[in-house]
């Protein structure tokens, strides 16, 4: 197991290196630079700026410089937010993104899982159809539509919740963004859970369990739930990626100071170091998450354990 984990982690290094290289050169291939503005700066000032950020050096030299700094954990200074480093921007923004992302993931798992189980148990009943219709709606409505509608209803019309802002992560400020971020994932997980639960419930060992006279509660929780969770678990990797990309929009709409919004704004500003920093950071996160899911898979399903 340990050996497996070690090999898996080792194999992440070339993946990350490819990610870093591709992002670095793609970003530089995009026309325009960080100091191109509607109001042009003088050639002298531009030269000073380029010199300060080493943009006057060859691309390969810059790449080497970046990798050297990165190996020491230094993501460089931001081009746009003059006196802040990328490390600092991520350190400040990530706890915020983690809070809404983590809560959204938890909500998606608990609510999606519960809804899926209920639908499976009441297969082809009113509840099943209701849940599945809701799930379809959840999947079909993108969160950039859901979020403004939720704000309009709960903040503007009813006045129950704030329309945006962070307010140090107060509960009332969390509700709408977490809901908006979780909604599509709740829907996916409910559908997955329902499908796998129905399949498991038809398995011979469940029939045996029931024949032994076990209560329905014990049958579901002790015998059916664990195998039924496997497909949901393997979906957690893509779900985390979905929540990260979702946060790009949600953080913008709710004015939340996370790092999701840098994905778009930094790319548009050609803030090279911020783009690189955020991509690498999230790249590491997604790789780690998938790795953990794989390990967990082995715990839940002995067949999946590496030999």
């Amino acid at each position, binding site marked *: 197991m340990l050996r497996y984990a070690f090999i898996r982690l080792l194999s992440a290094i070339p993946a990350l290196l490819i990610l870093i290289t591709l992002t670095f050169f793609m970003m530089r291939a*995009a*026309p*325009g*630079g960080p100091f*191109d*503005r*509607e*109001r*042009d*700066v*003088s*050639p*002298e*000032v531009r030269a*000073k*700026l380029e010199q*300060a950020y080493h943009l006057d050096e060859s691309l390969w030299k810059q790449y080497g410089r970046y990798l050297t700094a990165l190996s020491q954990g230094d993501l460089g200074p931001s081009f*746009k*937010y*003059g*006196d*802040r480093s990328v490390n600092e*921007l991520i350190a*400040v*923004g990530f706890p915020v993104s983690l809070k809404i992302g983590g809560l959204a993931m938890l909500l998606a798992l608990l609510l999606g899982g519960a809804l899926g189980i209920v639908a499976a148990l009441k297969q082809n009943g009113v509840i099943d159809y209701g849940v599945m219709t809701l799930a379809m709606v959840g999947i079909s409505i993108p969160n950039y539509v859901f979020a*403004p509608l939720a*704000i*309009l209803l709960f*903040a*503007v019309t009813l*006045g129950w919740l*704030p*329309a*945006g*802002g*962070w307010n140090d992560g107060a509960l009332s400020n969390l509700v709408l963004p977490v809901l908006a971020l979780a909604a599509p994932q709740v829907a996916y997980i409910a559908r997955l859970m329902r499908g796998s639960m129905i399949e498991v419930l038809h398995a011979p060992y469940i029939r045996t369990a029931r024949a032994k006279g076990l209560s329905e509660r014990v049958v579901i929780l002790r015998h059916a739930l664990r195998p039924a969770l496997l497909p949901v678990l393997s979906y957690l990797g893509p779900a985390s990626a979905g929540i990260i990309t979702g946060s790009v929009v949600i953080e*913008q*709409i*709710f*004015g*939340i*100071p*996370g790092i999701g*919004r840098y994905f778009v*704004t930094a790319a*548009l500003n*050609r803030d090279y170091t911020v783009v690189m920093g955020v991509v690498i950071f999230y790249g590491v996160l997604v790789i780690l998450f998938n790795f953990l899911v794989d390990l967990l898979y082995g715990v839940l399903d002995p067949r999946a354990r590496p030999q």
Partner: protein
Amino acid sequence: MRSLFLALTLLLSCTTAWSQTLAREQVLHKGNGPEPEALDPHRAEGVNTSNILRDLFEGLTSEAPDGHLIPGVAQSWELSEDGKTYTFHLRENARWSNGDALTASDFVYSLQRSADPATASNYSSILEPIENAAEVTTGKLPPSRLAVFAPDAHTLVIRLRAVTPYFLGLLNHASTYPVHRPSIEKYGARAFRAENIVGNGAYKATEWVVQSHVLLSRNRQYWDDAHTTIERVYYHATEDLSSEFKRYRAGEIDWTESVPVTQVRWIRKNIPQEFRVSPYLGVYYYGLNLTQPPFKNNPKLRRALSLAIDREVIVKKVIGTGELPAYSWVPPIPGYKQQTAEWGAWPREKRLAEARRLYAEAGYSAANPVEVEIRYNTSEDHKKIALVIAAMWKQYLGVKTRLVNQEFKVFLRDRTQKKITQAFRSGWIGDFNDPYTFSELLYSKNGRNDMGYVNVNYDSLLEQAATEIDATRRMQYLEQAEHLMLEDQPMIPLYFYVNKRLAKPYVVGWQGNIMDHHYTKNMKVLAH
């Protein structure tokens, strides 16, 4: 009956008095657009950053709510007879927010820092009227050679390169604000973090949560603190206009940065009294690349295309938030005679007939139409305008138009290179309330002259204006220059901008002004 009348009058006056009562909590929430880049006045760039800096710092001059110039740190000044040397007398009670005295040498240090190429100020050009500034900003002379002197603690002398009638107006621009030397020396790059900033404005920074808000609180050391009312002001980062609008409606923001154009109809219908529109010092135009076909050496075609655009339709039907149709380049500025094109007053049919005549003279016809490409950066509004203009050109002249949408930085690069652009959308916002801030864009050597416009007579008129002592004659040079340039039609002015924002009726003490500069120290929050 009489007693009833009296009672009513009494009631009414009570209501009026009540409505003017100040709110117990003087806290203002302003929407402020994108996140400020840095709160260093000498490296500030965006309008949103300057909005905050205006509360944190104060220049030698300042502005009243209507935008007219008033004394700032300098309580009075004199101008020498040749119009080239200003002597400023600083307030003796001016202090930094940490209690240190603010002296003339602080201004000497700050102006030198602002001009120093090592600071890499985006706006060092603002200092150019000062003697030696151009040489200092280009690194040819050391910053100590900037012609700014402090004969004593409260007297500051600034020598100018040439007569500059708008110079006093530049002294409330962020790049001329004083900065606190000991803090910069102590904290270096971290001197402009909320916890370290030492300013001299009516407010001081209390908290800066990146991508969320900047919180300022009243600076008790400010020389005119007795007249400040608002205790705390939040500048919320509101990059997304429709989110800002919703937060305004939910009562979380009292004063918005702007409004989403798509909501203007709803706003006009439901909260018209909160919708505040006023003229703004900016022009929206289509630049024409004069270095490539079809516009190279083709003034008749350029003229025909300009005549065929019905600006009234654009401002009323396409945008519809009170913008003014533009038939000249320089927006309305006091003391300057706008060079409105004669045909601006013609009836539409006459304009179109003239457009068709010029189009034919340029060698085009329905059978042999010109093909024009309109380039614009991604935005719903730019797209709508481009579509309408293409439709007008097609309908009235038969022009074949292709629309090219580009991401902003790609768009800027193409414009600067002048190789593939033909017609491109653009806008220009004045830095100070003087026509020169517009005229200079078309100067042949200007880095943002993306039209590639070169006219030696135009350049020479601008140069004459730059050295002219007589204010009237100077304006005349600038007027002549604009007239000459409009004849050449290197660009097509479309409309003059307006400021548009939502403000709760209980926020008072401010009014629309052409620079859109607002100081929180003048504002008050009424009980509501």
